[in-house]
């Protein structure tokens, strides 16, 4: 009931913003690392900055933390202007990729560090350290040294150390990349549980798109110092706004096509010798001419070569994946010569088999070809 009331109750919309980035940019000796960025992180939100290395995501995180100074623009945390404020006064928490636990201190001393700098009384410090170590299930490890802990345990200490000071924002810099796969997914679930329990505003940096899709409330996809799209994981996956986002998040099949005509979201186009009419999710389509047609593997299906609208392809490789098989097809009209789709494992086909690909009538997207980039 409570949530329904607060959902309709009028709110100060500014109060909903925990971090506001207003045209912040950064260059390193003439090379632009970050174009002017505008971004609002909502209170309690788990926002992911996703992109390949060198896209500016870590630079943006370092700017929020205060480790770097912005060339221009303003930065607000909880409505306070912090652009010029040094890191130790920003009241943020950060967990690094290698955790950066202080090797000369015990687990408890590591966790207590942020309380000591704030001159929290001894008794309260001990209590809060105990509480937060219980939260990350490390009560029994208080007296150990960091090097005596496993990777997962070290990460929990790093998290506890950041959480104990009740930060206004939690910053996570690729914290899972040093963990092996099983531990990684367990830690992802655990972190997400703690984060939502505490209602902690979190900015998470990663290059791993599946991690971003599974953990985030919203994702900002970045490349070349710009935010290319921001939205919920399903918006990013189902409705990528441009060529870059479509290929960086999830698997994409891309066809070289010629756009003949368009009315609203419906287009008529040629792919090789095949003429198709499609309805996309896009509000605006590119101008007629050479374009890229984007279709997710799960939207493609196999069909007879003689069917209308079928695109000719040849099975190159079938990769068994347990519950399904990935079929990699040679296809002359695909942008990189290959198309991938998934079929039940029992329907895997021998290499060399000629097949037809059927494209959906609704759902794909059309991008201008010139926009390709990494």
């Amino acid at each position, binding site marked *: 009931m409570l949530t329904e009331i607060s959902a309709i109750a009028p709110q100060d919309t500014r109060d909903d913003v925990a971090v506001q980035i207003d045209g912040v940019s950064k260059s390193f000796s003439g090379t632009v690392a970050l174009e002017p960025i505008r971004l609002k992180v909502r209170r309690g939100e788990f926002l992911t900055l996703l992109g390949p290395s060198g896209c500016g995501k870590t630079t943006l995180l370092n700017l929020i*933390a*205060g*480790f770097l100074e912005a060339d221009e623009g303003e930065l607000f945390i909880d409505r306070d202007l912090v652009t010029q404020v*040094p*890191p*130790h*006064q*920003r*009241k*943020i*928490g*950060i967990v*690094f990729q*290698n955790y*950066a636990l*202080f*090797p*000369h201190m015990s687990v408890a001393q590591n966790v207590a*560090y*942020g309380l000591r*700098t*704030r001159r929290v009384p001894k008794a309260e410090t001990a209590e809060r350290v105990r509480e937060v170590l219980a939260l990350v299930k490390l009560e029994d490890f208080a007296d150990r040294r960091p090097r005596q802990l496993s990777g997962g345990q070290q990460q929990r200490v*790093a998290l506890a*150390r*950041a959480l104990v*000071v009740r930060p206004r924002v939690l*910053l996570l810099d690729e914290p899972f990349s040093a963990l092996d796969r099983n531990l990684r997914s367990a830690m992802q679930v655990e972190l997400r549980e703690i984060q939502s329990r505490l209602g902690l505003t979190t900015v998470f940096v990663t290059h791993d798109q599946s991690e971003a899709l599974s953990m985030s409330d919203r994702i900002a996809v970045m490349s070349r110092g710009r935010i290319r799209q921001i939205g919920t994981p399903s918006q990013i996956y189902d409705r990528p706004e441009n060529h870059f986002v479509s290929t960086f998040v999830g698997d994409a099949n891309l066809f070289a096509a010629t756009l003949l005509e368009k009315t609203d979201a419906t287009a008529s186009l040629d792919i090789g010798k095949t003429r198709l009419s499609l309805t996309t999710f896009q509000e605006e389509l590119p101008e007629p001419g050479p374009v890229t047609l984007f279709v997710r593997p799960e939207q493609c299906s196999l069909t007879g070569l003689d069917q209308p609208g079928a695109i000719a392809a040849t099975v190159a490789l079938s990769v068994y994946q347990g519950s399904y098989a990935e079929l990699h097809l040679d296809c002359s009209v695909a942008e990189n010569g290959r198309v991938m789709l998934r079929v039940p494992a029992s329907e895997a086909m021998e290499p060399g088999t000629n097949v037809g690909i059927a494209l959906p009538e609704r759902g794909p997207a059309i991008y201008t070809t010139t926009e390709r980039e990494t």
Partner: protein
Amino acid sequence: MKKSALDHLLDWSGRILLAAILGFVLLPFVVVAIASFNDGAILSFPPKSWSFRWYANAFEYRDFGSGLVNSLRIAAIGASIALIAGAGFAYVFNRYDFMFKRLLNTVLMSPLIIPNFTIGLGLLILSAAVQLPRSIWLVIAVHVVIVLPFVVRSVYVSLKNFERRYEQAAESLGGTPLHVLLTITLPLLLPGLISGALFAAILSFNEFTASLYVVNQRTQTLPVAMYNYVREYADPTLAALSVIYVAAVAAMLLLVHKFFRLEKVLNVD
């Protein structure tokens, strides 16, 4: 896995080679150590009869005692000054960019190229020109100039390998720059600082050429006292003293090892 004859051969020839290298390195010291127990008054090898009397002489000879005290004082004070100045230089070099940085670096490293006697001679001329007394502080000044590059290098390398994330984590937790320096940076750099100071102290303790120019009878260091001794006498006292010398430096290293593991200090861990 079973070893073949060739493996055994390589294994043994490797051991012999290793022993040969060690023997070659240690040979001078072994010869001197044996000669120090020679009973005769002429430094000869191998000895015909044995005695401890040159050890007694080494301890009784006045100049050696005062030279040792001087050398220890100079090494301790000089290494401390070099450590503080060198660590400061290294920190500034690592963390800040400024004009003439490369020039300053070159100047700072120049004692590596300029021979010690030039440094000693230079400071001697200078001190005479400004009528500075030839006190122990002049000797210390010469030693600081000579050992400073080693300290700067040593600290600079540990700063370069230092993970900045530690400091950033501490800052994000509310640590002021000074607090972070005292609680994080300095404790983690300690092995580098110790090794810098250690090298400085040993270099200073062994320094001879430059010292020769700037000492007088009152401030002469142990190596200079030894040099003066050998000009007058040719008995095995110096051999005995060499053994004492090596034992003293080894004791110093052991002391460091007791508090800070030497592997860590020397960065071979």
